[in-house]
């Protein structure tokens, strides 16, 4: 068999095969019609997606520009001066991804109106320092106690620390005694209530200006 015969044989077979799949004008029109419907459907999906993203973007913008519910202040109080309910410095919490989300959720809850303030325990020894650090998410807050002049100090016993979550009508109390650790006593207080947008830390007297807060030492009473 030479090349011409081989080619003729191949072309003949090609005709047979092609005849079975050759499209008609109707096939093309139907496919064009299907394509138009698909494009119309795609446009609807695109428009819906744009609307949803716009709403989410507006909600985030509103949350970020609204009342800064996440701000927590941790003023260094002079024990001799007694309770100081009004903070003089502010330390905004760094917003992590989840914190930002929680802030957004909190901003959508109009009943949360409390002032987010932390107050240092009044009976903390003068040479010890205390600070609140934002937790790893909006539901937790770290309480750090340390003695800068004696990092090896391991004997400090922290008095009762009350942590009240906002809002006052939903307040709860946590009662913790912290354990020493490498000169620094840290305790993370975790909250499970997604409505929490701030924590109040201090003794009952220190927290008195926020009069609606109720106190309890029975954790079972806390409505987290």
């Amino acid at each position, binding site marked *: 068999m030479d090349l011409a015969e081989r080619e003729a044989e191949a072309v003949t077979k090609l005709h047979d095969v092609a*005849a079975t799949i*050759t499209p008609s004008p109707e096939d*093309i029109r139907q496919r064009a019609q299907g394509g138009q419907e698909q494009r119309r459907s795609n446009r609807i999906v695109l428009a819906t997606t744009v609307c949803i993203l716009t709403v989410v973007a507006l909600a985030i913008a509103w949350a970020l520009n609204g009342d800064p519910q996440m701000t927590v202040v941790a003023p260094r109080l002079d024990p001799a001066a007694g309770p100081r309910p009004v903070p003089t410095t502010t330390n905004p919490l760094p917003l992590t991804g989840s914190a930002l989300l929680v802030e957004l959720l909190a901003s959508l809850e109009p009943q949360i109106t409390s002032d987010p303030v932390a107050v240092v325990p009044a009976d903390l020894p003068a040479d010890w320092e205390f600070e609140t650090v934002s937790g790893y998410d909006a539901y937790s807050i770290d309480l750090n106690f340390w003695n800068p002049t004696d990092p090896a100090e391991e004997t400090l016993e922290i008095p009762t620390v009350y942590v009240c979550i906002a809002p006052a009508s939903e307040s709860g109390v946590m009662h913790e005694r912290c354990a020493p650790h490498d000169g620094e006593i840290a305790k993370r207080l975790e909250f499970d209530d997604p409505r929490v947008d701030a924590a109040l830390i201090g003794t009952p007297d220190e927290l008195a200006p926020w009069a609606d807060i109720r106190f309890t030492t029975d954790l079972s009473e806390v409505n987290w």
Partner: protein
Amino acid sequence: MVHRPTVCFDEFVREVSPLLTRVAVASTRDTSAAQDLVQDALLEAFRRWDEISALDRPDLWARRVLVNRGIDGARRKQRFAALLPVLRRRAEASPLGDTISYWEAVAALEPARAKVVTLRSAGELTAPEISHVLDMPESTVRWHLREARGELRARLELDA
């Protein structure tokens, strides 16, 4: 093929789709891929029919679209060496049967030459028509056809 000006899309499809399909099958050696190629080319012609119908030879335009997509696409497919066993199994089950070896030998030619031979054998185009479709000098088309004969003989282990 005697060409006459085409003014109706349906008439255009009935006229060119058999030839386009043969070129597509020869290029891809795969009926599903060939169907997609032909329908894509005709769909594009449908969408741009006002423009395409004004051409002297709408059929050559459609063939150019198809042969470029078909042969280039088939070549890209061949680059995936790992898929060769799969492609071989598909070839064994091809409706082209034993004659697929001829089209595989054509596809193995260098790209421009493969297009020329495919348009000549499967598309039944003359050298001037191939020259028009591929935007290639007619003398080059004839040279490719001459060279291809020798290469195909060697690949198919045929006598001169």
